[in-house]
């Protein structure tokens, strides 16, 4: 994609990203919906890049869905976050790496609030001491896990076995990115490229050979909305948001949707299934959906990892047509197997969505 004008200006919206010694905090959503993505992130960081990534099993949720579902008070959320900081401090680390965009937004919000209201930080320090006896230092660097992959995108490209290119035509795959609202909408200068012309995923796509498609609803929410999806009576909101995005990107015929936030790929994947079953409408080629990948999955694919090791079998929209176009080999008989290779059966086929 040719970068000029406003895009060139926003491309300068860069941030400092630590280059080693990370304290990793997991995502509740990613662990449940895309477990293979966290496994793949750690494999890339440790095995490919040789980085020190530490995880303390005693870390917990940041309370993010509870906080943005408005059942968890702000003081409670901030004190749970302070406890994560304390675990990081006690382990001797300074660079915090959350696997979740909601968490990243929360950590950013907490640090910004404490910056503007030092008395709130003091109050939280007292709460934490009272509840746990712990103390903490503010992280020296806060980067979402995708920021780290972005930082090392060139190193990954050097080791890549595949490029995001159609093996028959030699043309770049057309990719739309979705960075997730809480990555940069609240604090644009904390995200690579800001909120309007985000570059964190675009940088990966371009480096790995693909072409980024800008489309009108690129910045629109996937539709999680916390209580808007979780409560059945509100779920039309969620589906309507994803639908708006699909309709907007459809004319550009994207080959792939690449996501940053752990929740967005689930919604953009599952709502394609639901729309197909309810309305008979599909957005990919020949009755298929548009595959929706996490950035960890895409990094794993270009590095030549087995698609079933990185977890592409948990998606409802099938990935195989895209893998075929890139030229990635896979064993279909192993898609739904356990860790020993024994079959776990096969999911039922949808009625309308071709898989």
């Amino acid at each position, binding site marked *: 994609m040719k970068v000029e004008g406003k895009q060139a200006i926003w491309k300068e919206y860069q941030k400092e990203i630590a280059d080693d010694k990370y304290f990793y905090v997991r995502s*509740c959503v990613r*662990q*449940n919906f895309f*477990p293979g993505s*966290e*496994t793949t992130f750690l494999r890339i960081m440790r095995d490919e890049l040789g980085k020190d990534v530490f*995880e303390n*099993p*005693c870390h917990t*949720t940041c*309370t993010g*869905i*509870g906080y*943005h579902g*408005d*059942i*968890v*008070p*702000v003081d*409670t959320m901030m004190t749970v976050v302070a406890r994560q900081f304390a675990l990081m401090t006690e382990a001797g680390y300074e660079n915090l790496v959350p696997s979740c965009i909601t968490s990243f937004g929360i950590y950013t919000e907490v640090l910004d*609030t404490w910056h503007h*209201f030092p008395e709130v930080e003091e109050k939280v320090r007292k*709460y934490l001491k009272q*509840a*746990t006896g712990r103390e903490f230092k503010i992280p020296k660097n806060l980067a979402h896990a995708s920021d780290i992959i972005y930082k090392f995108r060139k190193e990954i490209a050097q080791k890549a076995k595949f490029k995001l290119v159609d093996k028959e035509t030699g043309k770049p795959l057309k990719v739309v990115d979705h960075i997730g*609202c*809480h990555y940069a*909408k*609240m604090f644009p200068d904390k995200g690579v490229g800001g909120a309007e012309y985000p570059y964190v995923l675009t940088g990966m796509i371009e480096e790995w050979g693909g072409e980024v498609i800008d489309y009108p609803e690129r910045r629109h*929410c996937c*539709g999680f*909305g916390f*209580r*808007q999806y*979780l*409560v*059945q*009576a*509100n779920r*039309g*909101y969620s589906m309507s*948001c994803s639908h708006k995005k699909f309709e907007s990107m459809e004319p550009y015929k994207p080959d792939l949707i690449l996501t940053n936030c752990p929740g967005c790929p689930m919604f953009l994947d*599952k709502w394609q*299934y*639901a729309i197909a079953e309810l309305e008979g409408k599909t957005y990919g080629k020949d009755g298929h959906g548009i595959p929706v990948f996490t950035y960890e999955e895409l990094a794993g694919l270009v590095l030549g990892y087995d698609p*079933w*090791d990185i977890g592409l*079998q*948990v998606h*409802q929209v099938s990935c195989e047509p895209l893998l075929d176009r890139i030229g990635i080999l896979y064993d279909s008989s192993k898609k*739904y*197997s*356990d*860790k020993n290779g024994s079959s*776990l*059966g*096969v*999911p*039922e086929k*949808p009625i309308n969505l071709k898989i």
Partner: protein
Amino acid sequence: MGKLYDKLLEDVRFQEGVSACINCGTCTAICAAASFYNYDPRVIVDTVQSRDEDEIKDLLKSDTIWYCGECMSCKTRCPRGNAPGLVIMALRSLSQDEGYFVESEKGRQQLFMKRVIGGWILDYGYCLYLEGIGTNMYAEQGPVWDWRQKFWKEHLDRLGGNYKGEGPGILRKIPEEALNEVRKIFEVTGGNARFEKIEEFSKQKAKELGLEFGDGIDNEYFSHIYTHNNNSHNRE
């Protein structure tokens, strides 16, 4: 100055979220909720800025404050640097603290959030803990989710998980001493008090509506708040 407005001012998010709104409506133009619901964040900020006690009380009792999806698109685009989404969060907190949330269909859903998400946080240390959550409640999750539910542990093992295991990893068992620290944090910071208020006011409302109320998710009131939609909320 009114009592409710004073309470809003005590919330740091309210202080951060609104400073001399000029009512331009940019927030409404970009708002994901306003494109779906009969919802207008510009009007909400205007109402709050009026400091009219009765109007603020009506707002706290209304469905209106529960339409926002907290995507915070409003924050990005506001020419004054305001965040109506943060104002919404302060209003929702006050609505629950005052017990007004049970006066609206959307507000009553907070019992679902408390029992399900709140329960997972305090019981397991995760916001989501999805073994056993099936397509009967989330139909759009589809057949691959049914397969995953059938082989929850097996497929987590396949993908490098450590389900209910000791040590680090995906969906590990978070040690009891860590969970106790989180529970203590909820106790000293007002988290438990919020939860107790949600339960208390919901119980009163269930009685008023003549709906059976019980613990957990298998009772008439809970089922009602999870599914009921009077179909008056959406933009035509």
